[in-house]
């Protein structure tokens, strides 16, 4: 007997490493941050909010700020849609399209952050069912939910642009494109809902009599003006950056120049209200309010306030954007727009934290004020970083595959296959 052992021939597969491109590095980096954020998010859901550095004195922190900011920078969607469909300046339509896509990302970021930030994420639907019409937070929740629906409808035509969707289900893609017919109505709904909740996010703080620094009507006005400025700025900035980095994006610089000028004027309005708001608080001593104001003007938040919010956030970009020569230079314009967004982020952070840091005692007698402190924990940072990375990746994918920054495509929404061509295409059943 012979034992025949035949060894299989081992084929060494040829390993081909994917080519390293800057796009892949970017996507991989964001994915790593997202994975870290998701891991920490699961830990928070599992272990609870004790993993954060939030306390009963400072129960709202970094995540609320991310929430406020991602909603603020999404305000380009409603404002530019209103410009296009209600003021009937149709030429801005491609920019509004970018803004709407950013809006969808921003609101989904806010929803994710909120889900982690509330103590009982399993009960998030309670505010949609058990209405307390007196609560601004209820109003904000309803508006954000409804507006997320509006944004989904508004972005349907963008998603109809996915190549494989158009090949595979052309009729579905056609239907999705047709949601464009609703655009004027959606613009009205978006304007109404956004005017409500963008202001209410400020009013949410402004109605609290327990917090003298917040208890003033101006916050709601400041919130909506700053939101529109930052939302438009992010849209223009992201469009310009995309066009600079990739050939998949193309911009009509004339449109962006016009919008940048408008942002400059919005900043004038914002500075005007901001000035009187801060100035008027300066005159009489009111326990808690004066201390809170001092946190901003000469306390631990003074750098944020003077440099971040006022100088870099308003004055410098206002000059750069209103001056025709600097506005015409892409680098200066982009810098200015980025400053506006940064300034509004600083404003949201300062607004939230300054009101919480001042602890006004309930004890009788002289006003007894102490200060609470808050530094976000590593987990809060990682979750926040993950959510921001999600936003960046979603936008990058949109630029790459959905052509969300494309000012020269005239057939954006009318990608309807001809009816004859449609008959020839195999249409799957149930579609």
């Amino acid at each position, binding site marked *: 007997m012979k034992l025949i052992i035949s060894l299989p021939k081992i084929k060494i597969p040829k390993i081909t490493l994917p080519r390293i491109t800057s796009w892949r590095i970017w996507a991989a980096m964001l994915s790593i941050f997202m994975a870290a954020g998701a891991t920490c998010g699961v830990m928070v859901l599992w272990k609870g*909010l004790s993993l954060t550095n939030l306390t009963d004195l400072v129960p709202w922190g970094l995540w609320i700020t991310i929430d406020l900011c991602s909603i603020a920078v999404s305000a380009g969607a409603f404002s530019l849609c209103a410009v296009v469909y209600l003021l009937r300046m149709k030429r801005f339509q491609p920019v509004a399209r970018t803004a709407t896509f950013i809006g969808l990302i921003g609101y989904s970021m806010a929803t994710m952050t909120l889900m982690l930030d509330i103590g009982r994420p399993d009960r998030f639907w309670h*505010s949609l069912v058990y209405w307390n019409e007196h609560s601004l937070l209820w109003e904000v929740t309803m508006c954000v939910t409804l507006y997320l629906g509006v944004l989904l409808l508004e972005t349907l035509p963008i998603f109809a642009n996915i190549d494989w969707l158009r090949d595979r289900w052309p009729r579905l893609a056609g239907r999705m494109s047709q949601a464009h017919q609703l655009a004027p109505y959606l613009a009205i709904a978006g304007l109404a809902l956004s005017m409500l909740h963008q202001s209410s996010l400020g009013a*949410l703080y402004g109605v609290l009599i327990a917090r003298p620094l917040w208890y003033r009507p101006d916050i709601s006005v400041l919130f909506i003006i700053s939101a529109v400025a930052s939302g438009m700025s992010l849209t223009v900035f992201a469009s310009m950056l995309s066009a600079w980095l990739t050939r998949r994006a193309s911009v009509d610089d004339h449109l962006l120049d016009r919008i940048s000028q408008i942002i400059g004027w919005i900043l004038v309005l914002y500075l005007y209200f901001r000035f009187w708001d801060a100035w008027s608080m300066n005159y009489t001593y009111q326990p808690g309010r004066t201390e809170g104001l001092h946190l901003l003007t000469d306390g631990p938040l003074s750098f944020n306030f003077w440099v971040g919010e006022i100088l870099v956030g308003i004055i410098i970009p206002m000059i750069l954007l209103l001056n025709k020569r600097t506005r015409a230079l892409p680098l200066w314009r982009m810098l200015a727009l980025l400053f506006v967004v940064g300034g509004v982020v600083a404003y949201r952070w300062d607004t939230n934290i300054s009101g919480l840091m001042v602890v006004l005692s309930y004890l009788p007698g002289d006003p007894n004020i102490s200060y609470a402190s808050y530094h976000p924990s590593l987990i809060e940072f990682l979750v926040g970083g993950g959510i921001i990375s999600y936003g960046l990746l979603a936008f990058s994918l949109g630029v790459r595959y959905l052509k969300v920054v494309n000012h020269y495509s005239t057939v954006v929404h009318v990608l309807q296959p001809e009816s004859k061509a449609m008959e020839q295409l195999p249409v799957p059943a149930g579609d």
Partner: protein
Amino acid sequence: MSENKINRRDFLKLATVGVTVLAGSQFLRQPAAASEPGPSGGHKWVMVIDQAKCTGCGYCTLACRAHNDVSPDISWNVVTKTGQVDNQDVYLARPCMHCAHAPCVDVCPVHASISRPDGIVMMDYDRCIGCRYCEVACPYGARSFNWKEFDGPNPAVPEWGQPEIARRPRGVVEKCSFCFQRIDRGLALGLTPGLDQDATPACVVVCPVGARQFGDISDPDSNVSKLLRNRASYRLREELGTSPHVFYLPATEEPLS
């Protein structure tokens, strides 16, 4: 293409249906369990805390922890030293103020904080989503969030009493309830809250010096009505207009500014 176009009429139809469904859901929702009036019978419960008597022993906090099964990390009732009168330390105990115009009730997005007709500000722990807006809105710091699960034994039990209500889960806000469970049960048994110990908040019952009184202010002959008629009293941060249901009798006869 034209048959697929949504015209104005269709849009309005769709919108009407949407709004109707949304509004209809409001009629279908269950009534809030805790917002049912319950046995109020025209009562208005108030607490009167006599700072001249309070020695700052903190028994009230411990009895509260036991009867309401409160975590050692949380105090529904905080006792603070506020100063001295005639070389005697003066303390201020702070339960929930049960404000008539409670900011927490207004701001809660889900009606998890509600004002009962008898003046008690109640929490519905099954409804709270843990957004902590009420905590930010409360001028008295009377609310605590359950940052982590309270598991394991309650160190205040059994020395200071037995738990009478369910322990709150992680992720909801909790606060003093004027021991509503004792009041409601007591009234059902025909007892008088404030006079009968079994129908009176645990902190009032345990106080060794009788610094706390509890009763019905809508009854002019009740213990608290008489006390508030005869003694000078004040409430915390009255200027805010919250109209608390907790009154303090100052340790000094000098009028408070």
